[in-house]
């Protein structure tokens, strides 16, 4: 057999290649940096992430049409690019808020940053995967790094426990995801999304029980990272136990990646099963929002409260997936950027309150913050308003888009439920504000945040307000994203 290996178009994977080089290089550099100056590794990682972000952004203009490479297993379109920017932004902010935290926790290690970059790489592959095998491997690369990062403070009992729970559940669910992929393969003879879609259309498999079952399993597999209803119960435990910067990271980036993969598989692979997956997602969406918000009401720990609130946010974003129209995809894309700003900000504040012997994640730690640190309290209020979806913040615009998409698609009851849920959400966000403004402070030791953390808070705070008042730039980017993505369908 004469074998010719075609050269794939490598120019489309330049950001991923750079990411691998950066992560491996970081590990090498780490060897030569003395123990007490590991912060330098963080700075290098940050600079690298910025470079990769710029390189990725440079593709934007060229990608009016989606391009595939590696025999169609990898696709680069604006949808993928947009989400890659979300991941890179989140990673950058996470590195900034980690610098000081790791020193306080005495786990300042170069591996931490390298793993975070590998995790970002996995997510970048996930959103660009046009083949279920590639998507699966992207998920696993991301998940394995996240498990380790979640347990990184290995002498902390809660932390290793969180990692174990996350790991066991994640591996279990990935088995189910794999069975779903197997069923799709069995029914259509391919794992490539475009071919799967073509075979379904050609053979009229839209009601095939194998595919319906596969749809359930894929939703379950991705639903774990999304933290949607039946698979949300790991979230509060892991969020509480994991190092706070990683909690912030987990609550945004893997969720965004899993959503992007879900949208790509459901819209481009099994879109003819739309009647079936709409029923499934309708139920999940309603349950996820309600459970998230109602349970969040009862939490005393801020990290747990934010965990349940992030479950609720997954429910809102599902509205956009459900709508299956251009506004929906635009809403998902916009919301994830807004969500990255506000959620990273809220967790950043929890880190700000981290002192020797105090984790800073109890609601009482926020008492009287308005008197001791008025500026900090104001920033927190901005994040809380944004999370609650009140103008003039980015969260409001995002939520508005999602609701509009769902109304356009005719899901009136679900939007009514979502609106009701947003009111419930006000109560628990208000509890934090109340603790800051209406209760008197306890004598606190001096807070000593790093410069990185302050910078991160300023950046996300400014973005939250800026894109709330003037959302047009981000909105038009999100619109282009949605446009090229939905074009594929017709």
């Amino acid at each position, binding site marked *: 057999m004469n074998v010719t*290996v075609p050269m794939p178009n490598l120019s489309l994977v330049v950001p991923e290649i750079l990411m691998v080089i950066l992560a491996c290089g970081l590990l090498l550099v780490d060897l030569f940096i003395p123990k007490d100056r590991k912060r330098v590794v963080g700075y290098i990682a940050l600079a690298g992430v910025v470079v990769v972000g710029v390189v990725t952004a440079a593709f934007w203009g060229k990608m009016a049409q989606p391009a595939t490479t590696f025999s169609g297993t990898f696709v680069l379109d604006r949808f993928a690019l947009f989400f890659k920017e979300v991941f890179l932004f989140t990673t950058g902010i996470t590195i900034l808020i980690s610098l000081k935290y790791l020193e306080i926790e005495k786990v300042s290690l170069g591996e931490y940053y390298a*793993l975070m970059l590998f995790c970002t790489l996995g997510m970048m*592959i996930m959103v660009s995967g046009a083949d279920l*095998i590639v998507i699966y491997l992207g998920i696993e690369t991301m998940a*394995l790094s996240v498990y*380790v990062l979640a347990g*990184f403070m290995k002498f902390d009992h809660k932390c290793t426990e969180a*990692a174990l729970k996350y790991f066991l559940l994640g591996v279990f669910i990935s088995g189910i995801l794999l069975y779903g992929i197997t069923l799709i393969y069995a029914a259509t003879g391919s794992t490539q999304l475009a071919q799967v879609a073509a075979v379904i259309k050609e053979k009229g498999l839209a009601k095939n029980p194998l595919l319906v079952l596969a749809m359930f399993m894929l939703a379950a597999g991705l639903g774990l990272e999304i933290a949607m209803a039946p698979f949300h119960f790991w979230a509060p435990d892991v969020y509480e136990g994991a190092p706070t910067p990683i909690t912030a990271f987990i609550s945004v980036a893997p969720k965004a990646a899993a959503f992007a993969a879900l949208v790509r598989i459901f819209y481009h692979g099994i879109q003819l099963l739309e009647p079936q997956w709409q029923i499934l997602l309708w139920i999940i969406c309603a349950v996820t929002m309600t459970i998230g918000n109602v349970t969040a009401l009862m939490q005393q720990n801020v990290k747990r409260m934010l965990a349940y609130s992030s479950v609720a946010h997954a429910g809102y974003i599902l509205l956009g997936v459900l709508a299956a129209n251009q506004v929906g995809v635009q809403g998902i894309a916009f919301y994830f950027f807004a969500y990255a700003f506000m959620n990273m900000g809220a967790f950043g504040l929890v880190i700000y309150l981290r002192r020797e012997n105090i984790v800073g994640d109890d609601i009482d730690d926020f008492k009287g913050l308005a008197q001791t640190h008025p500026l900090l309290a104001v920033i927190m209020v901005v994040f809380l308003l944004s999370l609650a979806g009140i103008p003039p913040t980015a969260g409001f615009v995002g939520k508005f888009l999602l609701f509009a998409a769902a109304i356009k698609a005719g899901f009136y009851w679900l939007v009514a439920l979502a609106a009701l849920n947003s009111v419930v959400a006000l109560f628990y966000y208000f509890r934090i504000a109340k603790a800051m403004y209406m209760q008197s402070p306890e004598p606190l030791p001096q807070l000593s945040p790093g410069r990185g953390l302050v910078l991160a808070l300023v950046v996300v705070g400014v973005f939250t307000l800026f894109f709330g008042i003037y959302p047009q730039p981000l909105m038009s980017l999100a619109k282009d994203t949605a446009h090229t993505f939905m074009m594929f369908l017709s």
Partner: protein
Amino acid sequence: MMINAWDVVFFFLAGLILLSALGVVFIRHPVYSALSLLANLCVTAILYLSLMGAPFIAMVQIIVYAGAIMVFFLFVIMLMNLSKGEYQERAVPWRLLLGLGAAALFAFQIFILAGEWRGVLSPGAGGFGVKALSHFIFTRYILAFELVSVLIFVAALGAVALAKKKL
């Protein structure tokens, strides 16, 4: 009714796999459970080799699964050197219910899907050689292949970062 020689082979291997799978789940002592899994994996490899025409997977199964992963499991289990009390598990009703519920769900699926499968395996027809498989991996799935190398690297890095005692 005609009894085919291949049917006999299949049911014999399937019976062995089933028994060893039950062993993994229901044996109390983790070391014996691990040995049972080892047996399971080896018999599965024979199944691949004899009936499914997948010699390369059979070899990989033996070398990687049985040779590396299971040895790793056994090594860690022995490293912990658990006392007898650690193996005593009280049956927790809700956990058992959860397990049985999942089983019932899957049995239901089997019931639904039983009629959905067309196609037969024809053992002895040759199957695929290593050459065809490797050609496929190194052309169409080259990206996935490279990604797997990153994944293994991440796993090694993570395992070292978590397990080494001194930071």
